[in-house]
Structure formats: structure tokens, C-alpha cells
């Protein structure tokens, strides 16, 4: 396919002078997509995460004392929700959880009205999980509040990419600043249901900018050829597709396994037995092709399908560290969202 260009007629576009339905500017402390972060932002978030993590709880607790953070979850979640909640509470903030199953969302209230309601109730920041790609943009534009994207449909899961980065850096003993060369020489394979994965997108949009080479691996229905073109413009390394998992493993220092998202398959049928044969992270395969690689998984895992217990529970596995790192990263994101990051840096 030819390279996408903007239609030449885009030059005709001008700023509108006439009134239109009111749209707020996206609050700059929002995190909707990793593409909105500069490498300097990434570095500051990681630094802030370190700092907040080390701080004595009694002092940390004063940082956002009684500030109001809302968690708006339209999809079930264990890790992300709990970790955002713990992060906010560790900073002293009050949290309220609104989920689709126990709110007016069930009665048909729109995302816009739900957001305006939370804002009227004093929310200073909304953490949103939605089954719809792009929903955080809508919430940011209709409320004007800082919005943290806790996963939107198949689009992105930026806090996951940041906690994955923190995990990778710590496993590889990389310290120092975040630059286009931070992950130079590192090859990472993301294997599985790439098509439906917001985690894969956020990692593929972030890590190549730090110099990591990213291999995407999976069967064609779960990994379309278009995927390589997700490569960010300022990537210093490329994104490739390798359908042979063994070959991908043999080149990788980091292996990120993904769950098959049965709830998003939308009529796609998959031979799970064949899938296991070709793509499962099992002890034999890992021992043969990637005996030293760090094994990651954003969860939830389906043990026995994409990964076996032996691999998930092995010393190679960084899966629990990922979860652990989530709290520090999310503390930093919430702190940043409430506009007080300057104080923390001093």
C-alpha cells in the first residue's frame, strides 16, 4: 500500500470563527496516548515514580491530601483499577469508583454526562477504562479535566507501557536518562493477540523511540500486516513481523506474552490447539530459544494457553514486578495530572 499522505486539500482548512458545540482543550496533564509524551516527559514520570515510591508513607500521604480522583470503569479490571486506586490513596487522595454495572451508565447515561456529573461532584482528575477506542479523548474534550487513560478498547494502555518500561529498565539494569538510545541493542518480542491489544499498541508506540527493536509475533488474523506501520515517526529502531515464534524468541532479550481476547474476537474463530503449538510460551521452547530472556505478561494470563505455569512462575518471569511497578508509575501519573509535579521535582 502507498504511504499515507494528508489530502492536499487539508490546506483549505482554517480556524472556525463561528460558534460550534463547545469543546474543551485536552488538559495538558492528561495521558491519553504514549505518543503525547516526549522522552523528557517519560524520564520525569519515571523519576517521580522512583521518588514517590521511596518516600515514607506518612509524608507521601500529604502530597494529594483529600484531593478528589474519580475512577470511571466501563470494563472489568483487577490490576489496573486496584493499582490506580492504591496509587491515589497512597498520595492521600480521596477516590470514588464508578463502574458501568452499578451506576446510571446502565440507564443509558452518556460518557459526556457521566464526566460532567463527576466534575460537578468535585473530581479533579478522571481515570477512565472504556471498551471504546478513543473514549478518553471524548471525556477530555467534554470535561476539560485531566484524564488518565486506563485502557480504551483496542487503542492504548499508556500506564501499562510505562510500567513495562520501568520493569524492563530495572531487569536490564539500565539507569540514567531516557534517550533515543536507552534501549539500543535490545530486542523485544510481543507475541499473541496483537490486533486486539492496547498494551501491544502502547508498547509498540513507545519502545522504538527509546531504541528498542520490536518484533510482533502472531497468526495473521491476530496480527495484520498493517501493524508494522504503527512505528512512531521518531522511532530509532524498527518494528517487524515475525510469524515464527521460535525465531523471534532467539533474537529477544524481552518477551511479552499476550492473552487472546475472546471478548473482542467478534466472530473470528481460532484453532486454540494449533495456537498453543505455535505460540505458547512453554518451558521447552523458552529453554531452547530464549533461556535468558525476561518474560512479561500484562495480565490477565490464561495459564495453559498462551503461557504455562512453569514459565509464568519461573525466575525469568517479571510478571509480578510489572504489577508492582504499576503502583509507582500510577502515583506519578496522578501526581502529574493534578498539576503539582513541580513540587515533587524540587
Amino acid at each position: 500500500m502507498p504511504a499515507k499522505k494528508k489530502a492536499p486539500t487539508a490546506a483549505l482548512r482554517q480556524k472556525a470563527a463561528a460558534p460550534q458545540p463547545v469543546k474543551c482543550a485536552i488538559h495538558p496533564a492528561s495521558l491519553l496516548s504514549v505518543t503525547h509524551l516526549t522522552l523528557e516527559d517519560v524520564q520525569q514520570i519515571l523519576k517521580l515514580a522512583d521518588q514517590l515510591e521511596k518516600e515514607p508513607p506518612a509524608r507521601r500521604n500529604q502530597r494529594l491530601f483529600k484531593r478528589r480522583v474519580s475512577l470511571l470503569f466501563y470494563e472489568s479490571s483487577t490490576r489496573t483499577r486496584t493499582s490506580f486506586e492504591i496509587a491515589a490513596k497512597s498520595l492521600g487522595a480521596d477516590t470514588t469508583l464508578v463502574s458501568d454495572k452499578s451506576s446510571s451508565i446502565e440507564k443509558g447515561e452518556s460518557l459526556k454526562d457521566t464526566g460532567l456529573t463527576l466534575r460537578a461532584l468535585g473530581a479533579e482528575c478522571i481515570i477512565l477504562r472504556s471498551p471504546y477506542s478513543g473514549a478518553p479523548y471524548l471525556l477530555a474534550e467534554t470535561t476539560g479535566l485531566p484524564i488518565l487513560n486506563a485502557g480504551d478498547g483496542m487503542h492504548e494502555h499508556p500506564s501499562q507501557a510505562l510500567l513495562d518500561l520501568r520493569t524492563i529498565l530495572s531487569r536490564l539494569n539500565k539507569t540514567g536518562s531516557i534517550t533515543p538510545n536507552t534501549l539500543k541493542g535490545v530486542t523485544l518480542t510481543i507475541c499473541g493477540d496483537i490486533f486486539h491489544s492496547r498494551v501491544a499498541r502502547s508498547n509498540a508506540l513507545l519502545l522504538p523511540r527509546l531504541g528498542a527493536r520490536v518484533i510482533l509475533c502472531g497468526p495473521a488474523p491476530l496480527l495484520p500486516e498493517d501493524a508494522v506501520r504503527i512505528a512512531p515517526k521518531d522511532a530509532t529502531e524498527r518494528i517487524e513481523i515475525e510469524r515464527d515464534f521460535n525465531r523471534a524468541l532467539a533474537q529477544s532479550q524481552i518477551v511479552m506474552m499476550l492473552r487472546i481476547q475472546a471478548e473482542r474476537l467478534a466472530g473470528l474463530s481460532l484453532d486454540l490447539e494449533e495456537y498453543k503449538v505455535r505460540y505458547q510460551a512453554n518451558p521447552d521452547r523458552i529453554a531452547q530459544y530464549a533461556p535468558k530472556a525476561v518474560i512479561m505478561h500484562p495480565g490477565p494470563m490464561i495459564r495453559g494457553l498462551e503461557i504455562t505455569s512453569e514459565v509464568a512462575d519461573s525466575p525469568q518471569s517479571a510478571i509480578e514486578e510489572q504489577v508492582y511497578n504499576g503502583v509507582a508509575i500510577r502515583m506519578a501519573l496522578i501526581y502529574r495530572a493534578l498539576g503539582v509535579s513541580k513540587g515533587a521535582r524540587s
Partner: protein
Amino acid sequence: MKPILIRNGHLIDPSGAIDAPRDILLAESKVAAIDKPGKIKHAGAEVLDAKGLIVAPGLVDIHVHLREPGQGYKETIASGTAAAAAGGFTSVCAMPNTIPVNDSPEITRWMLAPERNAAIRVFPIGAATRGSMGEALTEYGSLRAAGVVAVTDDGKPILGDRIMREALIAAARIGLPVIQHAEDTRLTVGCSMNAGPVAFRLGLRGMPIEAESGLVERDLRLLAEINDARAHLHVAHLSTKAALNAVRKARRNGLRVTCEVAPHHFVLNEEAVGDYDTDAKMNPPLRSEADREALIEGILDGSVDAIATDHAPHAAHEKEQEFDRAPNGITGLESALGLAIAVLRGKHKMPLSRVIALLTCQPANVLGLKGRGTLAVGSPADVVLFDPNKKWVFHAAASKSKSRNTPFNGWTLQGKVHTTISEGRVVFQL
């Protein structure tokens, strides 16, 4: 009604191959005379000075959604035709996906009743199957008698081979075209934009081009099998190179097939979706740049028969939703001429008379709207006066439509409508 004498204008009537300074007299709702400047004398006529303006047949849009009956909060026949008049249109063909579906003479007559307060002529298009359910044909004879000019299940494409064949045969018998919204909906479940790298990055499911081209190819195969010279297939809002090529090939083989292209498809590509802009969501979706360029080429080489807007108004609260949940469609009546001139003439140097043909006599011919899209003496006095060089900024908020869902808000367009006359009445004046 007082006769109108339009003087000092430059008259372009592609149907009569006129492209010259001419005066034109409208009387008794008809075009009464056309002659060289100063030649027509008529003491009792109201004089319109068209100095610096193009005088052309009123524009014809063969694909609009006026939302009545049933969805007056989006648009009414009155508001939609007022927007049409402001855009220079004097004839619009209204799609049947109303509530209830226009599948009966009663609904057709209701739409045509004077109580609807249409500013310009409305030509209803009837449903091809009852309730547009794709199962049983509607009664084409009585629909035509009530005023229907074509049949379609627009938005709910006819997928079944048998029912599509029946529709083509029945419509051919009484001289109605069958319009197909070509989308194999089995391939587009849950999709909200064009398939490709942009959709992948945004995490949206994409409609493959084969969903359009495959159904066009199927329809053309049925048309060939029927082998009836009267059978006429019209492909609505064609958006892909593959479908355009299928149409070209069928036409070379002598099949009676026509197609239309919407301004947004030849002006924008899938990148316009940006960060989930629901005003760039429509069906068929904005395609790749390669498809957009192919449509331009098809327009320039004459493969495309008509420009049609697919004017599809939606209320603000409907578009202000998550991208996947927002309805498809954008308004188009007031931006069509300005986009066509800016892009086709401005960027691609298409002669103005050919741009006008795509908006007048060619669409009128596609749906057999006799006397429309022409200034032939004796035809209904449908005229538009516009300044072809005037650049202006399109503001959706100033639209006559009830809805504001357009990706062209704030764009600088070229070609500003000055006066629109429908059957001898001035229905819009700047």
C-alpha cells in the same frame, strides 16, 4: 408570479452546451427565453443583475437524507431543502431510510405534500424491499405512480442474490433504477472506519475495500445475467478504486451502470479521522489516499456520472459519543459546490462547465429527472447564480440544516451561491 429576467451573467448550461454571456427570462415557472446580452426585452419582469456571476441550472443532488418522517430532530424536509437551496440545489432525491421506511405510496405522498414546506423540489426514492428488510419487494408500480424516482435499501444493502435479481428485474420493467449502497455488511461487523494502518493505530475495526467492490461486482454479475437493456444499476457513494474499476469494466461491456461520488470522498482521506473525530465518520468511510486519488481520476476521465452529497444530518448529542457508537454520516448540501469548485477546478483544472455538469444534467439523467439540471427553454425555472471565484469560509453554525455534523467547518471554499431560484421562485438569496 412575476417573470424574472437575469441579465449580464455568464450562462453555463452543459446540457445545451452553452458557456457564454447570456440573458435568461423565467416566466410561469419555466425557462421562457435565452438570448445574447440585452436582446431579451420584458417590461414587467423583475430584473436580477448577474454581473460577475455564473448562471447555471439549479443543482441536483440525487442522494440526501431529509430524515422525515420520523427524525425531525435531525432534519425536516423544510430545513433540509432550505439548506439545499442555500447550497444552490433545486432538486434533491430523498433516501427512504426514514421512520417508518418509505416503502409505500402513502409515505411518498406524505413527503410530497405541501404541508412539508419544501423550499425546492423533492424526489423521493422508495425502499426496494418492504421495510428495507431485504426479503420482499415493495410495489414498484404504485411507488412510481406516487412520485418515486428510484428504489434502494440505502444503508441496508441488498445482500441476497435472489432478491437483488428480483429487484433489478421488477425495476427494469417499469423503468426505475435500482440504487445500491454497496457494502457487504458481513465483512463490516463492528467496523467504523476504513481498514488499514490508520484504523490499526487507532484501535478501530476497519471496513475492507472488498466489502464495497465485492458487492458491486456481485451486482454487476446479476445485471449481466438478467440481460435486459432496461435494467439500470446505480452505485451510490462509490469510494474505492476497485469498485470504480468494476464499474468501468461493466460499462465497457455494455451494462447500464452509473455511479456517484460524494465530495468528502474525493476531498478527504482516512487521516481526517484524526483523534476520533466523529464528524469524519460516515459509511462508506473515508478511504486511503490512493482511493481518493482514483476517485479524482474517475471524475476527471468521465467514469463518475454524478457528484452526490449523501447529506446525512445527525443531532449534536448523537455525534458527541465514542467513535464506535456515533452514527455514520455528515451534512453536505451547503459545502458541495464550494468543495467541488475548490478541488476539481482549483486543484485539478477541470473546466467549470464540467464541474457543473456533474452537479446538474448528469445526476438528473442518472435518475431520469426530466427537465431538471438543464436550462432548456420550457424546462422548470430552476436556476442558480453563483460567484465562481469568491472564496469564503464555511461555518457550520450558520447552516440552514438542523444539524452541524460536518468535517468542513471553518474550511475556505471557493464558489459562493448568490441566488437560488426553484420553479421561478427565489428560494435563497445572499
